[in-house]
């Protein structure tokens, strides 16, 4: 026994020593270096960090409550993978409403009587909490939650999602007033986050949204260019979400530049975009059009240009499925491309 014990002890020490010696090589994997993109120097100060933690928590709390506003207090949750596998369906929403999120994959947090084993406890909870059957539910006016976004961005001006989602909700108001409010809101967000790719692309997207039968490429392009510069400088440090926004930015910028016939710059943008996203089909298509490999009068929708839905509340499945359909369609046949904007 003692030999076994000695062997185990020696082995443990050896393994620990090897692990200790190799920490340098695995450190970056286990504990990646903190990215300082968008983090101001003063934010790394201890006091600011603690305060920042509070601000971030408060903003996140408010962000989550915005969802409660939409559902009049009924707490919703996404279906788990297990539930989806078991074929459980979400509650769905009113088909006559503009989609806010993927209602096919959400259910109420308080379970319905059918899904609840708790007997009277469940019945009482369904009576005391703000619970109702949400099948085919409608939403409260998203604009009602706008004060929350104003508050969360006031509390934490670095909370980019607050700025972008808030502007998205402001754009719910189709009037000129809604557009100007959204733009002003984003501009304020940009003041606090001058290197935010999300905000820059959202501003551009606001200009590119069709108003009075036209899109404002001239105003959008400077923001798309700025986003491109920021992204190219920090590409290695970008998060997954930022990379996605960057890809959209390259596509939007390329399409916008083509619309204004700035083909030289479009070429440079497409080359740079393909360097970062070599697999991207739309960028590849733009490249082939620029090189005359395909005819430019085939009609497609400009990829993602009018996709204004920011990360948190976008109808992901809807968008993804449209993209997928579009991609498979483009892979199969038409080689004639015409980028047409009115």
């Amino acid at each position, binding site marked *: 026994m003692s030999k076994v014990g000695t062997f185990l002890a020696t082995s443990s020490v050896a393994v620990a020593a090897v692990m200790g010696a190799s920490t340098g090589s695995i450190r970056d994997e286990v504990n990646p270096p903190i990215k300082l993109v968008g983090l101001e120097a003063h934010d790394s100060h201890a006091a600011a960090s603690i305060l920042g933690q509070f601000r971030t928590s408060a903003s996140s709390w408010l962000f989550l*409550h915005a969802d409660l506003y939409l559902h009049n207090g009924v*707490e919703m949750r996404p279906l788990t993978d297990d539930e989806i596998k078991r074929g459980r369906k979400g509650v769905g929403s009113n088909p006559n409403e503009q989609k806010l999120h993927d209602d096919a994959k959400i259910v109420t947090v308080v379970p319905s009587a059918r*899904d609840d084993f*708790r007997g009277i406890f469940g019945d*009482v909870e369904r009576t005391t909490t*703000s619970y109702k059957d949400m099948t085919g539910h409608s939403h409260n006016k998203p604009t*009602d939650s706008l004060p929350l976004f104003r508050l969360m961005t006031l509390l934490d001006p670095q909370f980019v999602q607050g700025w972008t989602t808030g502007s998205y909700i402001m754009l719910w108001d189709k009037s000129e007033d809604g557009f100007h409010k959204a733009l002003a809101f984003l501009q304020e967000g940009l003041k606090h986050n001058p290197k935010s790719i999300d905000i820059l692309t959202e501003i551009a997207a606001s200009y590119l949204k069709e108003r009075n039968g036209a899109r404002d490429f001239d105003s959008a392009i400077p923001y798309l260019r700025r986003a491109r510069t920021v992204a190219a400088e920090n590409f290695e440090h970008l998060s997954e979400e930022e990379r996605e926004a960057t890809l959209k930015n390259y596509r939007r910028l390329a399409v916008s530049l083509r619309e204004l016939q700035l083909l030289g710059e479009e070429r440079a943008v497409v080359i740079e975009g393909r360097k970062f996203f070599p697999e991207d089909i739309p960028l590849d298509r733009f490249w082939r059009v620029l090189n005359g490999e395909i005819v430019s009068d085939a009609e497609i929708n400009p990829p993602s240009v009018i996709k204004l839905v920011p990360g948190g509340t976008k109808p992901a499945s809807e968008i993804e499925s449209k993209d997928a359909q579009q991609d498979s369609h483009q892979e199969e046949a038409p080689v004639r491309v015409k980028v047409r904007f009115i």
Partner: protein
Amino acid sequence: MNFPAYRALARCVVLESLRRKDLWVVAILGFVILLASSTLGFFGFKGLEIFAKDMAVTVLGMFSTIIAILTSCRLVPDEVKNRTLYPLLARPITRLDLLVGKLIGAVVVTWISFLMLAALTALALTIFHVKFELIMVQYLLAKMLGLVVVCGFSMAFSVYMTPSASATVAFLVAFGAPMVTRGLVLAAAGNPSLTPICKIINTVLPQTSLFDLGGRAVYLGWGLVPVWVMGFLFAYGLCYSGAMLFVSWLKFRRQAV
């Protein structure tokens, strides 16, 4: 039932708490909420009525629970630590009488704090022109019953653990029990064979979420809670805290002091 003893013990807990200025913390918190609400109005935020109500019930729920736990968790251990227990136990009362009196004291202290905070937040809500609705009364009543449950299990934990450990566990139970319940529902739905064990765990867990009518009070269009439900909450609160008293007594009745 030794009501005069309960009254004497409870009065002692309340007087001590009032004079120890524990409740000042609540008053200051209320004042901060009031100030913060005014500040929001100053910044020109409009349409924050629901948010203000939401904030009010969240703050009320959270701080009253914290006060309930911190008050109840130190009742018995403090008596032992400060040696004030001896003259008490030298009186012709049972140890159960002592626990009941202390628990009543903790509940009264918690209720006073809760109502103080509620009054201050109600004042703050008037800044947002929030109308007072009957559901708010139901919310307050249900919350007060829920606080009895919190006091009950916090005191029970304190008899079995050190004060800091009992406070930590009480916080976990108070704020984590609803999450565990959700998890149990999911687990039972995923694997029906787990339903019996989920039922047992759920019965043992305090159903603190049942007492939170905040959602109905905050958002518009929700009706009043039926009387039978309020009756159920009352009965459940009484039974659960009674059970917790019994659990405390099981250990405390023979505990050497």
